[in-house]
């Protein structure tokens, strides 16, 4: 069933509007941070990106479980959308992190548990996107990527704790509880802005994936012949 609703555009548009509002507030009107100065203002996009990247990948995990346990092509389409948006957000997150780290810690990269876990997640889910590209059979592609998502997601806490034992230096996570009151509102507005934008993107990408799958499953004549053998005695069929 084709879905032509304007929901993804409405979600995305609202998300962009909130992001503009929150970022303008954060960049121009929120007070300067005492130690880091203006550099700290990247927090208003960095922290919402981090939350939503985890959320998108968690949604991918949920889609994978639903697909494996219940089946249904809609879960495969959602899985594809969630992995892709999650990988884009994780890439942005690592880049923003590096930009923030250089002036504050003096290095682009640090082997901190959260940073390293995010990088590992980025490569794990990027690998799953590659797997999807290299499997032609839509059924195998769907099952394998769902299995790979479950395996990769279960690894997250193990990677986190193993890197934590190995090394650490990251500042405490920024959240409305750990940052000063003056920074709350732009952070919250941006968090919801990114959330809505991500929801809109996943929605739109799901629709695209579903359309592609529809095209693939409406098999061309040659494949259809192989997949469903003609009944004995059918026109032209030699049993």
């Amino acid at each position, binding site marked *: 069933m084709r879905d032509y609703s304007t929901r993804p555009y409405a979600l995305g548009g609202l998300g962009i509007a909130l992001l503009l509002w929150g970022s303008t507030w954060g960049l121009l009107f929120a007070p300067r941070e005492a130690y880091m100065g203006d550099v700290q203002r990247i927090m208003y996009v960095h922290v919402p990106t981090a939350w939503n990247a985890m959320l998108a990948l968690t949604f991918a995990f949920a889609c994978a479980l639903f697909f494996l346990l219940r089946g249904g092509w809609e879960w495969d389409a959602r899985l594809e959308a969630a992995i892709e948006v999650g990988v884009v957000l994780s890439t942005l997150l690592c880049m923003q992190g590096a930009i923030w780290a250089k002036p504050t810690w003096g290095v682009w990269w640090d082997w901190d548990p959260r940073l390293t876990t995010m990088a590992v997640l980025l490569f*794990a889910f990027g690998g799953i996107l590659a*797997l999807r590209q290299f499997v032609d059979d839509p059924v195998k592609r769907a099952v394998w990527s769902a*299995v790979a998502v479950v*395996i*990769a997601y279960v*690894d997250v806490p*193990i990677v986190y704790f193993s890197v934590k034992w190995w090394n650490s230096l990251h500042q405490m996570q920024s959240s409305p509880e750990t940052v000063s009151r003056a920074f709350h509102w732009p952070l919250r507005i941006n968090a919801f802005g990114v959330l809505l934008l991500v929801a809109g993107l996943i929605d739109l990408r799901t629709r695209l994936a579903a359309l592609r799958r529809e095209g693939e499953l409406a098999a061309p004549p040659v494949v259809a012949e192989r997949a469903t053998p003609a009944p004995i005695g059918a026109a032209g069929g030699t049993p």
Partner: protein
Amino acid sequence: MSALAAALRKDLLLQWRTRAQVVAIFVFGASALLLFSFAIGPHAAALRQHAAGFLWLALLLSSTLALAESFQSEMEHRALEGLLLLPADARALYYGKAIANALQLTLLGVALVPVMVVLYDAGTARLPALLGIIVLGSAGLSAPGTLYAAMTAQARARQTLLPLLLFPLVVPVLLAAVKATSLLILGDPMGQIRSWAVLLVSFNAIYWSLCGLLFERVVED
């Protein structure tokens, strides 16, 4: 249980019959160890410091060859389809192959240790502990590796895909195994080896059960 024994026997026999392949993979691992030392230069202390890391990287690189090969033979003449038609649980097939792969990687790891000792002067007197870490690390590589090899053997660009999927996943195995091995070589005044071994055991417990559950979905058609 008898299905598992039969599957394991089949895979071990297959490895024995293609032992030239195993030797070739060992030579690959040993040459990787030789090449790593050129990255550091002829500094005995620095080489000794990094010996554990090099050993596990060599084993990890060799493991992708060994794992891919283990399913390649099942793809020939559609052997996998034949195996799945047998009245045996797909899980028995998975565990047979995963155990055979873990044994092969353990053997490979044990064979690479003397090369490491000679090249990097990185020996240890605690050989049973080192063997334990090699067994746990090999098992940790083999559990998800065998499952991924089952997928990638049937996909295009399989040589690229297997490491792409496996490497990020086994970061905890690599970390824990390198740390533990390094502590064995350089000394362990704080008694930390135990906690790294516990991490390896937990990774193995999680992935040996999870991959066993998921394997059936991967090979079913």
